[in-house]
Structure formats: structure tokens, C-alpha cells
């Protein structure tokens, strides 16, 4: 303990007291560096910076339901007021909440357990890992149709098997039922998403030093205790990042809901993203949809803040800039 403090101090003190340079001078000195990022920067400004600006701008206007943006009327914060006060916003937000939380939770738990299992050595491990990852790589459109077919009310596999087993008498209606639609969609989403959590956590598990486990074993710690006191603390960073990325992906996921139910029946599976899409391209209410997007932005930025913080913690430690 004493040794580390005495060693750490001189390093901090011995930092070369570099002459302070003005920002402009540094920019000039580094001018050539900017050439490397210039193409990327231009493209990003065009396809990312500008859209963000325009969305915020448009959110203050009422737009007539047409594609030409010439007749828009300045309405200030009216769009926001209308959205936040509307009854459907409450329902859609609740759906979004359920969808995001449950998808993230189950994808994480299934993925973590899978990572622990395939981390052990056994014959055929490579094949098993590959198989488990496939749902993540295939397109969400294909996945949506596969699950729609599995859920099919007359000829679906799931109803068929359950009837074969004598568990039910009549086929279950999974997607056309207000109460069942959300859980059914979440199952399909978890099927597609859990491999992501698995890969991330598996990569994390591979960085846990074997000696730590040995040491804990010598101390008499069983599998469970080693998991709680060695594995989990070591994976903290990866766990945070994986959870945040899953939250963001689920909050943003559009395809599965759109193709499987389109938000129905009766809006029972409508989430923010599908609602924004309906508003913009179904009803051509660009102003309203923009305001909706900005609300989404704010939620994302909050999550994004924690994501960047979690990511850069490791970066700073490794190489002080």
C-alpha cells in the first residue's frame, strides 16, 4: 500500500510542465492531422449533423400533410405540448417501457448464462457457439417472418406442438390478442438479441485471470461464490456496456414490431419508434413526428452519456491523452 503511493506520487509530480499553447496554435501545428479525418467529417456532417439540426428545427413547425415543406407554420412548442398531453403517448410510452425493459432483461440473462456455459471447454464448443450466434446475424426481416410463421394461428408450429401435447384444445392466437402480443414479440426479439449479450460477456469472461479462480478455490469458494465474488466484479465494465447497448438497441428496434404486427392489434404493440414512423410516413405529419423524435433524442442522449462514460473509463486508464 505504502509502496504504491510513494511510487504514484513522483509520476504525477514529474509530469513535464509543458508550455501552455493557445488552442489556435495547436490547431495550426496539427493542421495535417485534420486531413485524415476530413472526408469522414464531411460525410458525417452531411448525413448526421444536418439531419439532427433539421429534426430539431422542424419540431417547432406545423406541417401540412404533404411532402413539400414550403407551407409550414411556426408553432413553437405546440407540437411537444400536443404529444405530451395526448392519451396515446402514455400508452405508447408504457408499451415502449415494457418492450425495452423485458427484452433487455431476458436477452441479458439468457446471454450471460449462455456465455458461462460455452466458456467451459467441451467437444463441439465451436459449433455450438456458431449456432447460438446465427440469430444475431440473420436479418430482422427474415427473423420476423420466421416468428410470424411459428406463431401462425392456424398452422403455426407452437400451437401445433402444444395441441399435440394436449396442453390446449384450440390454436392460440399469439399476435392478434391484446394481452399476448407484447410477450410474443419480446420472445422473438430476445431470440434475435441474446447472442449479442453472449458474445460480449464471453469476451469479458476470457479476460478473467485463471489464477483468481484458483486462489478463490484454494480458499474454499464454491462455483456460486466464485461467480459472485470473482467473475461479476471483474466483468462490471462489460456488464454495464452490454446492458446500455441492449437498452439502446431495444428502444430503437423497429423491424420486428413493424413486420410482425405493425403496432397492432389496436395499438397494443405500438412503441415510440413505430409511432414516429406512422406519424411521419403514414400520416405525413413531419412536424409532429420531429417533435416526437426530439423527445426520443433526449432519452437516447441520457443513455449515451453513460455509455461514453463507461467506454472511456478504460481508455483513460490505459493511455493518458
Amino acid at each position, binding site marked *: 500500500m505504502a509502496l504504491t503511493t510513494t511510487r504514484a506520487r513522483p509520476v504525477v509530480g514529474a509530469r513535464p510542465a509543458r508550455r501552455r499553447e493557445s488552442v489556435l496554435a*495547436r*490547431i495550426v501545428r*496539427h493542421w495535417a492531422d*485534420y486531413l*485524415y*479525418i476530413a472526408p*469522414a*467529417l464531411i460525410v458525417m456532417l452531411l*448525413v*448526421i449533423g*444536418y*439531419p*439532427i439540426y*433539421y*429534426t430539431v428545427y422542424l419540431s417547432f413547425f406545423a406541417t401540412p400533410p404533404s411532402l413539400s415543406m414550403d407551407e409550414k407554420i411556426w408553432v413553437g412548442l405546440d407540437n411537444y405540448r400536443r404529444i405530451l398531453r395526448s392519451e396515446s403517448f402514455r400508452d405508447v410510452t408504457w408499451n415502449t417501457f415494457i418492450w425495452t425493459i423485458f427484452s433487455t432483461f431476458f436477452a441479458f440473462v439468457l446471454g450471460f*448464462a449462455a456465455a458461462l*456455459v*460455452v466458456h467451459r471447454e467441451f467437444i463441439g464448443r465451436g459449433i*455450438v457457439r*456458431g*449456432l*447460438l*450466434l*446465427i*440469430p444475431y*446475424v*440473420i*436479418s*430482422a*426481416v*427474415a427473423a420476423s*417472418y*420466421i416468428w410470424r*410463421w411459428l406463431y401462425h394461428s*392456424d*398452422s*403455426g408450429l407452437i400451437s*401445433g406442438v402444444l*395441441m399435440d401435447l394436449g396442453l390446449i384444445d384450440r390454436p392460440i392466437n399469439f399476435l392478434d390478442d391484446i394481452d399476448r402480443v407484447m410477450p410474443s414479440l419480446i420472445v422473438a426479439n430476445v*431470440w434475435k438479441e441474446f447472442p*449479442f449479450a453472449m*458474445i460480449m460477456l464471453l*469476451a*469479458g469472461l476470457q*479476460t478473467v485471470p485463471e489464477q483468481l479462480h484458483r486462489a478463490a*478455490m*484454494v480458499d474454499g469458494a*464454491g*462455483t456460486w461464490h466464485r461467480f459472485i465474488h470473482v467473475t461479476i466484479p471483474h466483468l462490471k*465494465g462489460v456488464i454495464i456496456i*452490454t446492458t446500455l447497448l441492449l437498452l439502446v438497441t431495444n*428502444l430503437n428496434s*423497429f*423491424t420486428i414490431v413493424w413486420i410482425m404486427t405493425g403496432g397492432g392489434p389496436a395499438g397494443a404493440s405500438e412503441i415510440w419508434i413505430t409511432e*414516429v414512423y406512422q406519424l411521419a410516413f403514414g400520416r405525413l405529419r413531419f412536424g409532429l*413526428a*420531429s417533435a416526437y423524435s426530439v423527445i426520443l433524442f433526449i432519452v437516447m442522449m441520457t443513455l*449515451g452519456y453513460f455509455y461514453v462514460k463507461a467506454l472511456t473509463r478504460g481508455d483513460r486508464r*490505459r493511455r493518458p*491523452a
Partner: protein
Amino acid sequence: MSTAQQTLPAARAATKAAARRTRRRRGIWDILGWIYLVLLLIFTVVPMLWMLSTSLKSEWAALQQPPQWLPSNPTLRHYERLLSPYSEVGPTFLRYLFNSFWVSSATTVLGVMIAIPAAYAFSRFRFPGREALFFSVLLRNMFPAVVFLMPLFIMMRWLHLVNTHGSLILTYLTFGLPLSIWLLKGFYDNIPPELEMAARIDGASRFQAFWRVVMPLSAPGIIATAIYSFILAWNEYVYALTFLNNEERLTLPVGLQRFFTEYASNWPGLMAAAFIMSVPVVALFLILQKYFVRALTEGAVKT
């Protein structure tokens, strides 16, 4: 001395007992693990096998209840129809396939080419604004595509790019480029700068050092990034749905949906189309799994 000799065997026995205990406890966890793995494999694999099995059935057989696990009269008819240029849907489907290849490849090549110098600069140089710029790159991953959709759609109308592949290639850079920069930076971070310095001392210019030393070493990283970006572009649906109307120009994900609305009850045909669409990405992924996994986890997991 004598006490030490006495306790040694006792200690050994104690360790052995402890080891046996942990092994027994491990045994329970092992069994639970195997059960879980089997259930998870069923959950993962059955939907995919069901797609394959359905795609080999006739339309009538597919609607049978109870469902047939394996087709009693397997047929390749749906695949033939989709892939033959002489059937009624074949030409359209092949066109979708070609469009998807073209758009995904162009996006990948363009994205990686622009990303390489940027990622290198973010990894090596310490110019003012570097951190702020890099974080804005990261933050892009947070934004939903749907939010970009409206302004990009309006922009594409101005540029007269609606209904062209150019609009897709350009917009796919919204996710391809930040992702490529982020992944490649991770790979460049892992290449020691000393190697370039050595090359510089030997008389190479900065560009030569980059081209001759860094590029070959980062080839796996570039491959990983390219696959990842190709897969994302291949699977992309929202932009393609919004920007393309022309039947001739659709990519596979949207094309699949068109098929579905047209041949609503033809589930085997749809499953065959979904299978064909999955083959390239799954093949790419299985061949280059190691790189792909590295690309996914790079950055989040620091060793």
C-alpha cells in the same frame, strides 16, 4: 519439526476433501449448465430448422395440422421458382438479390475507405478537438434510424436521389461510418506505435510507414470491419423501405415484404426466400467468425 510433519498429511487430506466438495458442487452446476445449453439450443435452432423444413414443403403440406416436422414429400420447387430467371417471380427476386449485393458492397467499400484514415488519426494523433469529435462518432450509435429518416428523406428529395441506390449507399454511411471508425480505431490502438517509429527511423515517410507497416498489420481489423458493415447493410430495412418505391431497385428485405403481401398464403415460398437471404451473411459469419466476434467486442472489452 515433528508437528509440521504431522500436520502435512492432515492438510493434504483437508485440501483433497475441499477439492472433492467443490467438484461435487461443480457437478450440480455442470448438469444445470448442460440442461440449459440443450434448452437454449432448441430455442435457437428450432425456428431456423422450421424455416428450412417449411421451405421444402408444398403450400398445402405447410398448412397441415398437426405440423409435419420433416416434409413428407420434400420439394425444391420454391427455390427453383425464386432462382430461375424463367419463372414468373425469378427475375424479380434475382434483381433484389443483385441490388442487395451492390448496395452492401458499395457501402462497405466506401465506408471503410473513408474510415481508415480517420480511425488512424483518432488512434495516433493528439489534435485539439479529438476527444469531442470521437465522442460524437460514438454517440451516433445511440440514435435510432427512424429519427434520421425524415430529414434524410427530405434531403434526398432535394438531391433528386429518392428511388436510387445512391440514396441508400449515402444513408448507410450514417451507421457504417461511425461504426467502422470506432472498430478500426480499436485495432490501430493495439498496434504498437514503436513499429512505425522504427520504420520512420529507417527512412520511411509517414505515409510509407502507415502503408507498409500499419496496413498489413491491421488487415484482420479491416476484414472484420468490412464484414460487420456488409452484414448491417445487407440486413438494413428501414431506409430501404422509405427511400425506394421502384420495384426494380428494391433490396431483399423490402422485396421479401413485397412478396409476402403478394403471395400472402405462400409460407413455403416466403421461408425459401428468407433462407436464401440469410445464406450469404451466415456463410460470411461462419467463415470469419473469429474476426466478427472480435469486431463486435472490440472496445467494450479491454484486456
